[in-house]
Each structure stands twice: as C-alpha cells, then as structure tokens.
C-alpha cells in the first residue's frame, strides 16, 4: 500500500485564476458573487447570489488552437489541471522525472458536468432537427470530455475517470484517485472537481427551495505516491491520510429532502471511517471543514455528525464565501488542503442531495 500526498494545486474560482486569489478571498471572509434575479416557473422569480468564475486570458495559458477544440467545461478543467501540473513542478522539462504516462491518471468529479454545452447542442437539435446536430457540441456534451482533454494535454495514459455525486463530486473523485494510487494502479493522478452554473441549471435551482448562494469552480490536485514525490524532490502540501463513504437510502434522489437522522448517520459513518487514522501515528484532527450546503436541516445534521466524531474541534466551511455547489468544483477540498499548514490535520465533510456522504482526512506529512 502506497502513501498518497498532494504535490500541486490548481484553481479557478469566483476569486479569479489561481490559488493566491482564492486564499485572499477566504482570508477576507467576504461573500463572493453577484445577486441575480432568476426566473422561476409560473412567472415567479428568485434572487440568487451566484459566484461565477470571472473571465480571464485563457490564451495566455493554452494556445487558441487547443482551446477551440474544447467546450467551456473542458477548457476550465484542463486549465486547472495545467496549473496544478506546473505548481507540482511538473513543467515539460521535468516531466521525465515524474511517473511514466501509463501511471498518470485523471479523476474528475462534477455534479452537472457539461450542461452549458449540452444545452447549446440540444437547442440546435430541437430548433433545426436531429439531422443538423453538431458533432463538436455532442462530443463536448459527453460528461468525461473535460477529463479526456486534460489527459491528452498532460499525456496521462492511466485511468481516466469522471465521477458524479452532486456537491460531493470532487471529494468522491479525490477518494477514488487516492485509492488508485494506494493500490498501485497509478503513481500520479490529477484529481479534483468542476462545477459550472449554466442558465438552465440556475433556472432549475431557482425553482427549488434550495440554497440561495451558489458558486462555481474548478480545482485540481496533483496526487502522487509518497515515493514518487520524494524521488523527484517535490514539495508536499499534505498527505491524504484517510477517507470514508456512506449513504442514506431514505434521502430523495431528486430533491433536497432528507430526514435528519439517517443523513446524519451516513455523515457520521463517513467521517468516522475517514478519521480512523493509523493507530501507530495518533494524529488528532485540528479542524473540520464542513460542506454546509445552506439548508438548515442538513447543516445541523452535518454539524452534529462532525461534533460526534471530533468533539470540540473547530469547524469551518468555504460555502459561505464561495457559494454552495463550489464544493463540487473542489474548492472545499482546496481550502482543506491549504488549512493543513495551520491545523496539521483536517477532516473534510462532503455530502450530496441523493444521500451520499464522503469524508477525507488531509494532514501535514510532518504530523
């Protein structure tokens, strides 16, 4: 079994392009995004605060000929991967020192995937007929197209997986990636999340009694086996020390409805299983990063589940700054990785509306 560490971070958030603006936004605790009146059915409208990724010069990061072949989701995920790749010291001149292409994989989590492109494509199909469908938009509507593009860009020929689990998608991808490394399937993986707030999605979310503060993001982590990272002298940000998954079978698959008791039990089980660290290296959790989706019942269940597993440990959440759904884009995971330096060991909680609960422990390698 290999130990797995984080050696690079890449991020696109409402705060801007890169990890530094993200760190500054978290430090300010200022709620990002702008208020939008979103039309809901039957002539109603709802005010939503949407923290969108601002525009930035993409061609400074990737040639226009490559960007042209990608939809919006593929561009953002590939750029986040590329940033993490460089952040990990894996620029092309040193790539030879990292894992071989067959041992480099991709694990992307996304709740709604490429809905923006899918809707462009489908509008064309319904407006002009099936015979006029765009092959480019179709290919870019396939949910794993972002992971496919980043694999091409970074020559990652190992497993290329796209997972989905609502707001917990990035956490699910990180867990799956970590396991692939731990089991010796890969030596390096680009893991993380992507979530975009497209107009049809906002329209749908406006019709629900869900959270009113929404966010998007794309965050990528370079996970490496400890051996691979040490062999090339990489800087190690954190170790992925534990993970857990559980689910509540009573939660509704298509609404925010969840009964507090079963979902709390699922959260508790996931957190508990992640927090069971190596008994030979007792390492108390320094902080719990909650998902905090903004629904009072879910948030209370999560807070109590975390308190049951880590009594008295400080709790925090990035959703108040970045908006709900930004967690699907990996921003909560990114905040947890950055928090390791201060708190030593961080327990991350993530859950999704269908009743799935995930948890990860990130800790300082020195701890």
């Amino acid at each position, binding site marked *: 079994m290999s130990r797995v560490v984080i050696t690079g971070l890449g991020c696109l958030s409402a705060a801007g392009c890169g990890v530094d603006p993200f760190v500054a936004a978290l430090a300010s605790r200022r709620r990002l995004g702008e208020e939008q009146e979103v039309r809901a059915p039957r002539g109603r409208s709802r005010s939503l605060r949407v923290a969108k990724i601002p525009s930035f010069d993409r061609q400074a990061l990737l040639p226009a000929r490559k960007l042209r072949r990608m939809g919006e989701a593929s561009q953002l995920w590939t750029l986040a991967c590329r940033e993490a790749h460089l952040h990990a010291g894996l620029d092309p001149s040193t790539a030879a020192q990292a894992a071989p292409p067959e041992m480099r994989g991709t694990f992307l989590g996304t709740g709604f995937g490429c809905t923006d492109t899918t809707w462009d494509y489908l509008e064309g199909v319904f407006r002009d007929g099936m015979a006029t469908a765009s092959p480019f938009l179709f*290919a*870019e509507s396939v*949910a794993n197209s972002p992971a496919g593009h980043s*694999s091409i860009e970074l020559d990652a*020929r190992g497993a290329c997986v796209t997972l989905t689990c609502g707001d917990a998608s990035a956490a699910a991808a990180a867990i799956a990636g970590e396991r692939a490394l731990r089991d010796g*399937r890969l030596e390096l993986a680009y893991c993380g999340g992507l979530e975009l707030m497209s107009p049809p999605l906002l329209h*749908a979310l406006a019709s629900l009694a869900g959270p009113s503060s929404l966010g998007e993001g794309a965050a990528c982590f370079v996970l490496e086996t400890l051996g691979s990272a040490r062999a090339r002298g990489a800087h190690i940000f954190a170790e992925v020390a534990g993970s857990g998954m559980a689910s509540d079978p*009573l939660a509704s*698959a298509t609404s925010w409805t969840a009964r507090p008791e079963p979902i709390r039990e699922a959260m508790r089980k996931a957190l508990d299983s992640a927090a069971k660290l190596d008994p030979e290296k007792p390492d108390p959790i320094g902080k719990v990063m909650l998902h905090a989706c903004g629904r009072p019942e879910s948030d209370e269940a999560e807070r109590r589940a975390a308190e049951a597993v880590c009594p008295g440990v400080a709790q925090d959440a990035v959703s108040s700054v970045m908006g709900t759904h930004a967690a699907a884009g990996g921003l909560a995971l990114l905040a947890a990785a950055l928090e390791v330096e201060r708190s030593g060991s961080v327990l991350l909680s993530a859950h999704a509306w269908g009743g799935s609960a995930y948890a990860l422990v990130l800790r300082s390698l020195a701890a």
Partner: protein
Amino acid sequence: MSRPESSAIRVAVTGVGIVCSLGRDQRQVWGNALEGRRGIEDLDLFETSGCLSRLGGQAPELAEMESLPREERRRASRTDRLCMSAALEAVRQSGLEGSPVLGGFGVSLGTSTAGMLESEIYCRESVEKGRDATRPTRVLRLPSSVPADAVSRLLGTCGPRLSNMTACASSALSIGMAADLIRSGEVSGMVAGGGDALCRMTYAGFNALRLVDSEPPRPFDATRNGLALGEGAGILVLEEWEQAQRRPARILAEFVEYGSSCDAHHMTSPHPEGRGAASAMAQALRRAGLAPEEVGHINAHGTGTSLNDATETQAILAVFGEETSARIPLTASKSLFGHLLGGAGGAEAVILVLSLLHQCLPPTLGWTAADPGVRLDMVARASRRHSFSLGMSNSFGFGGTNCTLLFRRAA
C-alpha cells in the same frame, strides 16, 4: 503466476440482472441471445427523421416498475427504471432481497446520459415556448448520480455510493471500482454495473459523427459500417467470497481483476494502434498475475464501426499475439442488442458471467469474414458450446477511456 498487487480478498458474483432489447430479465435475454435473435429494429421511442439510421435496441416496458410507489414512479427516469429493474433481479438471484446483509452494501453504477430523455423535454419546451413556460424540475433528473441514488433507495443500502460517467466505459469501471472497495475490506458487498436509456442527444450525436449504420451492426466483419444504439442495464451483485460461501449463496462467477487506461489521443477516435485498449487488457492480466494464454474467451467492445473494431483487433493482437488471438473465441454482444453506451460494460459483464456459468457463447450476428490478413476466432451465426474458465470483457469510450474486466468460472 503469483498475484503481486491485489489483495487476498476474493470477489464473488452472486447475482446478475439485465434488461435490454432482448428481454426484461436474464432468462429472456440469455435465451434470445443463444438463439441469435437480434433486438435491433426501427425505434418508436422518439422521432428519428433525418437521421442516417432509424435503428435501435429499444428495451421492453417494465411492468414490474409499475408497482413502485406513485411518487417514486413519477420521479424515476427511464434510465433509473432500467437500473432498478436489473438491480432487483440481481439482488433476488443473490438471495439477498429483504436480508439485513444488503443494508451494509454499497452501490456503484455507471451511466452516460441518466435522465437525459426526460430532461430533453425541458429543452424542447424551452425552444418551442420559451424558458419561462417550462418545468425546470425535469433538469433535476439529469445528474448521472440519480440512477445510483434510486437503486440505493430501492434496495435500502447504506454503504458507499459511486456514480461513474466515463462514457462507454462507465459501468465497467463501476464494477472494477466496486470490487476494489470489497477487496479493501471496507464493505462486504456492492451492487455494481450501470445502464442508459436511449435519448435524442446520443441518437443525434452518433448520427452527426456518422458512426451509425442504417443496417444492423456487423462487428469485426470486413464490411462493417457502423453501430446501432441500444438501451438497457446490466447489474451484478459482488460479494466477499467467504461471506457468500457462509450465507450460503450460489456463486455464479468470480470477479478477478480490471485494468483501466486512457488513449490520451483524441476525444472521439481511438488511438490508431489501440494503445490504450491494449494497456487496459495487459494491466488487468498483469495485476491478476495471469498469462494471456489463460484467457478462454473475449467479449469484445466490438461496436461495429470501422475504426473501433480495427483498433481493438490490433490491441488484442498486441496483447495476445497472433497465435493465441486466433484460438480465443471472440464475441461482440452489441450485434445482438446494440450499444448501451454507459450501460454497455454492465450488460456485457452479465453476458460474460452467464457465458461462464453455462459454458456457452452467444453468436456475433452479421459476421461473415474478417478484415484481410486478420485471424480471429469469431463466434458467428450460431451459439457455441465452449469449455473455459477465464473470460475478458472490454469497454472503451469517448475521451479515450478504456476498461477491461476479467471474470473466472466459479470453482
């Protein structure tokens, strides 16, 4: 050969469920497959005018799903119902229906379009009447996590839940990742596989890419000219071997290993030399500590497109060599029920498990001659009795993703 990388925990298959155009359960599907009946004909699920092909493998209506509570029926997408039906059949065969053991299981499903067929109505109404006149809650059936949520809810499972949307390798990867969870000791059993319903999005898309044939598909045939889309679900109950023996359950087969890779070459075209496909097959064998010569049958990805089958052939030749490739019986289930996209790996894994169990291989329809210079042992025209203990199933998809599963006959 030794098993250098995998854990000591063995994974048993104790139940399978399948629904596709050949039938609504394994008895119907397997019976029709062995008789070489084709489940591909003109679609009536939606209008296909203007498309290169009007063919598809449309699944039968699922009467059993009518017994679901009204609210559940209203919410469930066609993909959800296909997955729930197959999952229920698999769990019943495993003898776990109503058992408290099932509560500790997890669910790992793959799909590529999930509730797209229903979500498309939102888009169509949006184009025709304007967005304000539509019911946006239909969009909420779209997330690909919903089928796994629906199956978990139906079965009452509290374990890990994974939803894979890695195109046509989705459900094969879901099976492999589920087995990893069992082998890690985290969970004693998983309900794994996946499904997809036909929808306009994929139907129009494959037409636009000119990957479909107006005639039924002829995988690996020299005159092949494209695929036919299908719909359905294939789901397995995977269980820790010793627990299955203790219950006692009838063990249908053993899940041995999987390999996964990415071509890192092109979004919709396979690597010209089948590099990623070969890597997935070789990885599965290497991790299992098995030699290529030990494989007794390959259930190929075999879509029927010119490029896919040519590169899969090259990959098989690269891994097995010419002599071994020429004596391993090869089948392509997509000739029977079409390409189930995200559900393909699950349905074809079920066919492989049934092939191991019954020691019989269904035919590949439409095959008459291989590409010039290629020697493959295609099982064509009629089913074949075949004694074998190790079978391989390939699933490859857009984005260059590849997954190979290995199953062994239960000893």
